[in-house]
């Protein structure tokens, strides 16, 4: 299996990409969150606006720094603004 990061899209991110998750191939040494977001924006142009308003998680932890690196096997999640209740 190729080295990849599993990306989950929720709500408007899911609608913009048309999928709930993708496996994104990444180099063996990993990839920064910032570079991963650039790839996603290239792949899904409609996702761009959503990303601007979203929060991101690596393995269920909120990212506070987009320089943080993701390793192969990590999960990445795109959370548009919440709307429970």
């Amino acid at each position, binding site marked *: 299996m190729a080295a990849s990061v599993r990306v*989950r899209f*929720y*709500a*408007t991110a*899911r*609608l913009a990409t048309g999928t709930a998750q993708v496996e994104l191939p990444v180099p063996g040494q990993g990839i920064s969150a910032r570079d991963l977001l650039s790839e996603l924006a290239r792949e899904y142009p409609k996702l761009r606006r959503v990303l601007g308003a979203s929060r991101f*998680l690596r393995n*269920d932890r909120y990212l506070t720094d987009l320089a943080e690196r993701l390793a192969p096997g990590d999960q990445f*999640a795109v*959370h*548009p603004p*919440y*709307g*429970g*209740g």
Partner: protein
Amino acid sequence: MSVRLGPRALSLARAYAELTGPGLGGIVLFAGRVRPDRVAGARVRALDYEVDRTVALERLRAIETTARRRFGAERTVLWHRSGSVAAGEVAVIVGAACAHRDPAFRAARYLIEELKRSVPIWKEVLAPPARRRRRRPARPAAR
């Protein structure tokens, strides 16, 4: 401390039962029901709640812990449905029990505001099939 996140119907009577205990003189409950609003010309039939379950449960527990510490809420309820919730049904119940009423009101308010602000739950309007064009992300819908 009671957290729930799932497809089952929520009972206010059960939430209340979770909140009774000796010395707890003030109990405040909030129930949020799906309103049959008009959205894009069609009456809302249901809302579909999508969740990031792992993160949502962790956030809900953290919110309860804070409510307990900040307001002295000895018992709390923080229940939210996932999946489709029909108009008229309860989508969310929060509740807090304290010795006195003031912290109970403030704790309950905190629980629902924090839930809406910081828990990964999203709603999508499900309009009647007849007039439905496409599913669309919800903006105003439930309170």
